[in-house]
């Protein structure tokens, strides 16, 4: 139980001018753990995700990450090339809007194969074979491999985004409201798929969601954010079933049986 965390955030803060994006956020995450960050819009959860994925530079605090070679590094002290390598291979980022996470003018197979090429795979047959395998794993008919994602339904696009992100066997995946624009039945299927893949691959996942039912289904731990601060965190079922803070009690009581 004492192995080192994969990612460790300490006193993380971001100011937009005088306005607080988020402040004093600290947590660890290990491989195999799914951490949900919940809160209403404006709570700072999206800012936090941008800091963690190095899209934004923090105003204060540190993020340390254990690289594939076992050395723990300060994310903001990496070279640009090292950072890009992380984003392309060791990390995934599943966006709320699939159009931001996919290349809409590239075929489904190309979307998956591209990430493989970024890690140096050059053999066309192998790339196509792996892409086919991944389309199957995310339940996309393999005869759709040459179709463009713009012809896919919302649920299929999200599944393709997941395949594109997981094909390089990342250790950490960020997800930003991955199920929000989808019909409920499509959501359930996607969540079920994500849950299976996360367990099978032992991924660490940081998922931002406003949907407590999604957090309950997918995550082991939860952080509740409000006004840029983490007001409560712990085991997901404990925080949702026995919430301590007034705001968390309000959130939990505001949804139909999560």
């Amino acid at each position, binding site marked *: *139980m004492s192995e080192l965390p994969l990612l460790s955030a300490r006193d993380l803060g971001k100011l937009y001018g005088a306005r607080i994006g988020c402040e004093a956020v600290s947590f660890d995450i290990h491989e195999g753990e799914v951490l949900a960050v919940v809160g209403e819009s404006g709570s700072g959860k999206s800012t936090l995700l941008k800091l963690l994925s190095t899209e934004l530079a923090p105003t204060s605090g540190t993020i340390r990450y254990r690289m594939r070679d076992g050395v723990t590094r300060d994310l903001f002290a990496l070279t640009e090339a090292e950072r890009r390598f992380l984003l392309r291979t060791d990390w995934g980022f599943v966006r709320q809007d699939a159009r931001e996470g996919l290349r809409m003018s590239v075929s489904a197979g190309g979307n998956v194969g591209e990430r493989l090429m970024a890690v140096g795979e050059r053999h066309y047959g192998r790339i196509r074979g792996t892409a086919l395998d991944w389309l199957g794993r995310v339940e996309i008919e393999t005869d759709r491999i040459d179709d463009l994602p713009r012809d896919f339904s919302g649920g299929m696009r999200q599944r393709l985004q997941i395949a594109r992100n997981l094909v390089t066997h990342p250790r950490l995946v960020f997800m930003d409201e991955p199920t929000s624009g989808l019909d409920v039945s499509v959501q*359930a299927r996607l969540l*079920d798929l994500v849950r299976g893949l996360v367990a099978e691959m032992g991924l660490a996942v940081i998922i931002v969601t406003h949907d407590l039912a999604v957090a309950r289904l997918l995550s082991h731990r939860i952080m509740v954010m409000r006004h840029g601060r983490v007001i409560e965190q712990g085991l997901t079922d404990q925080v949702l079933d026995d919430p301590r803070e007034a705001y968390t009690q309000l959130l939990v009581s505001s949804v139909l049986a999560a």
Partner: protein
Amino acid sequence: MTAPDASLPLVSLSGVSKSFTLHLREGMRIRVVDNVAFEARPGECVVLGGPSGAGKSSILKMIYGNYRCDTGRILVQDGDESVDVARAEPRRILALRASVMGYVSQFLRVIPRVSALDIVAAAAAEGGAAQAEAWARAERLLTLLNVPERLWSLPPGTFSGGEQQRVNIARGLAADRPLLLLDEPTASLDAANRAVVVRLIEEKKKAGAAIVGIFHDEDVRDAVADKIVDMTAFATEKAA
């Protein structure tokens, strides 16, 4: 299961108190239990007794880490290590749930698209059983609990309440966990199925598991209980 040391309790509570503060009700405080103390040893079934509202379910949920514990200690034995659930990190509690303690309620949280057999086999596999053994156990439990074989390959979402409940019991008992927390698993089961559950509990006790349970039915309670803890002894006045 590793050979349990019969001298060590697998779970031991002392000074455990619990209250809920309802911020949406002007901070009203509901005190549930005060100063609870009991323990369960390998092979022992401890039944929590007392009327509804005495805090029986809350105690099981606190041992499982589902509810917070305000004061006191809840020590769960994990091999040579004793873990205080009241203070443990989430990661540590998850590890206990993965290998040491199981919780069975009367309700099945339905997982969409997963068949009844897969649900039970997965639970056995998570508890460390090899794949073939996991399937065998799942089939045995579903058979014993009279879940018709034609339903095994279907997700239990569409099953009757009783069938879902029996799938849930099968899932809860599929893994070899040294500590079992049973929250009225037999509620609304018929006599034949209650008898099956009694037999399965006896098997778990023989294998060295400690069980803390709530049983509404007197016949089940009389058959399985080694010790009854009267929860009214830890009662508090409801509002403070």
